[in-house]
């Protein structure tokens, strides 16, 4: 068989699924809602990071559904400490393994350290710890499960909730159209730290996600992956539409799939002709209250953001200069 990579996954078309690893690291018996896009993402991320990884997980949906004493859905070594400090815990793990390796107390390669948190745990309460960990340059991968609100506590808005969405704390009303702010751009924030690998992903594009995660854990230094995770409960969508909605988010340009490698943007899933955002919005109850003018506004904004992203992808220069090598022998 050819090397299993993005190219081969395309060559084998739908049968490429057959090439993916069978072993499960996030096992059935976890208590996510029906049709949980986040659980689906976790399942594949855990396969991609493999068995030699250690996971630090934030408080949130995936923590609660998977780790009620005395049972765990996790197969890899896993630690949950609190909500906002996952990147700091991961920093400690990475530094801990590093010193043990240096002192010869750790046989073999140090485990890959992977931090995981939801969008609230990442873009709101966990942002400071994440910024610190990225700035310090720890060799770790941070995965954000973005289901676009605080779903675990009952669908409250976060800074990652999209414009117009109804949540329990951004309800539409006489003086409100729902969420009044545009989704925070966590990817740009990660890129601004000058880290070597940043990407967006969605389990609806499984191979794209799988290989991005593999690349992220293999990249020395910090890597950040922002994964759109469809939430039927919070988005008020049909449970069987989870994968379809993820695909529509990409096809409409609402959630483009791209990588930023050493500061250079490029699209990994190119959508030559974007579908209207309406196709995506209309399947979700959280947008049901929106009228034409708001939908038009969202459409214009999505296109404007997408255009800017394309310009970044075409830019002849990276977002930050490459780290110059120390001159030796001078």
């Amino acid at each position, binding site marked *: 068989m050819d090397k299993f990579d993005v190219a081969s996954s395309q060559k084998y078309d739908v049968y490429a699924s057959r090439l993916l690893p069978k072993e499960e690291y996030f096992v059935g018996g976890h208590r996510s809602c029906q049709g949980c896009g986040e659980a689906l993402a976790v399942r594949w991320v855990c396969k991609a990071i493999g068995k030699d990884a250690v996971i630090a997980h934030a408080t949130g949906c995936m923590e609660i559904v998977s780790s009620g004493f005395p049972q765990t859905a996790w197969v890899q070594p896993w630690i949950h400490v609190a909500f906002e400090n996952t990147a700091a815990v991961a920093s400690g793990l990475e530094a801990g393994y590093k010193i043990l390796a240096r002192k010869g107390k750790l046989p073999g390669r140090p485990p890959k350290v992977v931090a995981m948190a939801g969008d609230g745990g990442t873009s709101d309460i966990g942002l400071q710890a994440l910024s610190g960990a990225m700035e310090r340059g720890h060799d770790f991968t941070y995965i954000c499960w973005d289901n676009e609100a605080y779903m675990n506590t009952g669908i409250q808005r976060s800074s990652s909730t999209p414009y117009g969405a109804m949540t329990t704390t951004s309800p539409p009303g006489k003086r409100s159209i729902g969420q009044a702010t545009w989704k925070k751009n966590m990817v740009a924030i990660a890129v601004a730290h000058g880290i070597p690998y940043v990407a967006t992903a969605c389990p609806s594009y499984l191979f794209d996600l799988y290989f991005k995660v593999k690349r992220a854990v293999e990249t020395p230094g910090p890597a950040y992956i922002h994964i759109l995770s469809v939430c039927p409960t919070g988005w008020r969508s049909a*449970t069987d539409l989870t994968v379809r909605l993820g695909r529509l988010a990409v096809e409409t340009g609402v959630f483009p799939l791209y990588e930023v490698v050493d500061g250079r943007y490029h699209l990994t899933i190119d959508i030559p002709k974007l579908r209207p955002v309406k196709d995506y919005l209309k399947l979700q109850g959280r947008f049901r209250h929106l009228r034409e003018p708001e939908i038009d506004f969202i459409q214009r904004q999505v296109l404007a953001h997408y255009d800017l992203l394309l310009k970044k992808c075409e830019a002849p220069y990276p977002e930050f200069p490459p780290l110059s090598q120390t001159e030796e022998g001078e």
Partner: protein
Amino acid sequence: MTKPLEDFTWQEIELGGILREPGSARDYKVGDWKSQHPVWTKSHCIRCGVCWTVCPEGAIIEEEGGYFDVNLDYCKGCGICARECVIGCISMVTEEE
């Protein structure tokens, strides 16, 4: 099989509440949440495995001959597999009371 929560004494809580059996959630059968479950029409199935990739529960298992079926202990009946099947050979069947 882990015992019921209310049977744990404080002496039995491991140091730091650590759990030493990876994947022990398998003991928890979420299958009774569902109101429907998938059924494959094998004669149409092309054995691609897409259904297996899209299941959030990892409940779809490969059978002999490369066909797929569902482990009803873990299937929550979301219907993603049926929706995503490239051939349309999976149908969701309502649970009988």
